[in-house]
């Protein structure tokens, strides 16, 4: 249980984000996001088993429903509807992306952020992994050219923050739980409305096709 919670789950989150930088197909991206979300659900569930707080179980169920089931289903529907097979383009090529990823991970593990990753000294390794995941998600947002991959990147950043909060033992805060649920709610609405609007107006969900704001 301990190995799963403190080592394997945060590693899955980090590896899924690294993979999101490398995949080419939208369907692979959605699968990775769902997989990452399962890891987050398991983290929250482990935390519920440890603390016995019912509110945590409720958040776990909401995250399971929204992120593991509904969001991937919805994204897959969009992919099929708009025939979006290969639109996970990036600004930076794969090899250079890997270099940046390595630099970001080294940064997350550097002395500069020791205070941050030592909030709970016993969870230092897991917090470092979660913080690395945050930085990589941020890079994914900047590096993504597709609207769908930008949404997945933002949701990955949110997952990374949740992972960080769990290992910093802040997940029991009612505020955090409400915040997570609300953020999921917002993004479900936004994703539903906007991806279709972008596709309708630009004939593509590639955000580089947006060039109407040059005045």
């Amino acid at each position, binding site marked *: 249980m301990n190995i799963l919670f403190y080592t394997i789950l945060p590693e899955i989150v980090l590896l899924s984000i690294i993979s999101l930088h490398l995949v080419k197909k939208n369907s692979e991206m959605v699968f990775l996001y769902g997989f990452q979300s399962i890891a987050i659900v398991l983290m929250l569930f482990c935390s519920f088993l440890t603390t016995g*707080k019912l509110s945590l179980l409720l958040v776990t169920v909401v995250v399971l429903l929204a992120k593991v089931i509904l969001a991937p289903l919805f994204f897959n529907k969009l992919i099929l509807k708009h025939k979006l097979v290969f639109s996970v383009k990036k600004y930076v090529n794969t090899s250079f992306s890997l270099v940046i990823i390595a630099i970001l991970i080294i940064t997350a593990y550097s002395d500069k952020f020791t205070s941050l990753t030592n909030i709970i000294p016993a969870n230092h390794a897991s917090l470092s992994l979660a913080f690395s995941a945050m930085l990589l998600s*941020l890079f994914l947002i900047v590096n993504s050219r597709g609207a769908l991959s930008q949404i997945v990147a933002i949701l990955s950043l949110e997952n990374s*923050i949740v992972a960080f909060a769990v290992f910093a033992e*802040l997940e029991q805060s009612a505020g955090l739980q*409400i*915040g997570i649920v609300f953020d999921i709610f917002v993004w479900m609405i936004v994703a539903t409305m906007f991806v279709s*609007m972008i596709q309708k107006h630009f004939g593509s969900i590639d955000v580089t096709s*947006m060039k109407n704001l040059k005045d």
Partner: protein
Amino acid sequence: MELLFIFTFLLLASLIGLFTKKRLFIEFVSVFASIFALFGSINVAMKVVALGSYSPFSFLYVESFGAVLLLIISLIGLSTTVYSIQYLRQESAKNIIGPARVRQYFVLLNLFILFMFLATTVNSPIFSWIFIEATTLSTVFLISFYNKSSSVEAAWKYLVVNSVGLLFGFFGTLLYFTSLHSVDNGSIVSWNGLLNGATSLDPVIAKIAFIFVLIGYGAKVGLAPMHTWKPDAYSKAPTPLGALFSGALLPVAFVTILKFKTITDTVVGLSFSQNLLILFGTLSVFISAFIIFSSRNYKRLLAYSGIENAGIMALGFGFGGLGIFAGTLHMIYHSLIKSALFFCSGNFLLKYGSAKIKNIRGAINVLPFTSVVFVVGFLALIGMPPFGVFFTKLTILSAGIKNHQLFSIVLIFLVSLLFIGFLKHVTAMVFGKKPEDMSIKKESVWLIIPPLVLIGVVICLSFYIPPFLYTLFNNIVLHY
């Protein structure tokens, strides 16, 4: 109780827009809710003056800055609602929008105002975050209101920048919670609870948390370099919305940063947060000064002016001392003037059908009342004496010259540059020869009254600050 009534009326006004198609009724209910919100806010402000703070329930808490914000939101909210009615009627007459769009507009407008009220009065950092995030949800569909490619693009940009920013803000807020491990985690942590627990916060964590909060909420304020969404969103959204964005949302997000600043200051001292505010403030003024000069769109011009003024407020709070007093006063002046200028720009847009500066010529002949208000607003905004902004800018500069000479000198140069840039555009728009085919018709009084009232309030406040406002300002200076 009045706060609950304000929330209820605004929510009802929004819901009525969903369930009825009668335009007149929707407009009436929206104006009624806004008028009630204004009187309710004045009542709450008076209670804060008398008692120091006002908390009808543990979930709601209004202190001096909250009271000032309530007054700003309610006044700008009312003037925007009144202005929007006539503005949208004229757009409907030109077949730019249909009845469904009008309903959508008032639903979202009332929700937007409601969320700003809630973000200001709620006694919890997490709920403040939630309601500020909720403003994103309501406004993003207002930015894409005209359903054009450019407006969808602007809305998307706004959404991505603000969502990432707010996730940063969320993360920063969580870091502040690390000081509360011993507190019952099942309860909602209040602002005061966070402040009281700050003494056990690790100083390095406090610094990192403040950086995240400043970047996060700074994106909503529009501080450079997180400002990139602002010119696009302002230029593509319905013009009256610019007034609420610049006049109300900016101060709401700014005060949230200041609340976290207070917590950070108790842990690491004043200089850390002040230096960051000075840095971001100077960068904001610097960027806007150069872009305003070459701006080609008057709505974007106003957006960059908003970035500049957010920078000046940040400098005021960064310099400290009298700068805080001047920064607060500057926030009020800016909200009122900028809203009035957005209303004037709406009148230009309705008449000329273009947001490009080069297409607006001879406005003094075509729209004389609007032009006079626009020029007066412009003079007030750039800080011409005897307007209040002259006093606030001078005070902020004098507060800075003591300890931050270099920044103050740079600021003087940038403010001069802004003056020249703004003057160049305004004179070109207002004076000169009007287009040959432009007919001169009487201006609608409902498009003139809102900006005129706001400029009137600015002029009054430039010469006389009522004692109750002085009390609120003094409390703000003592607290921040």
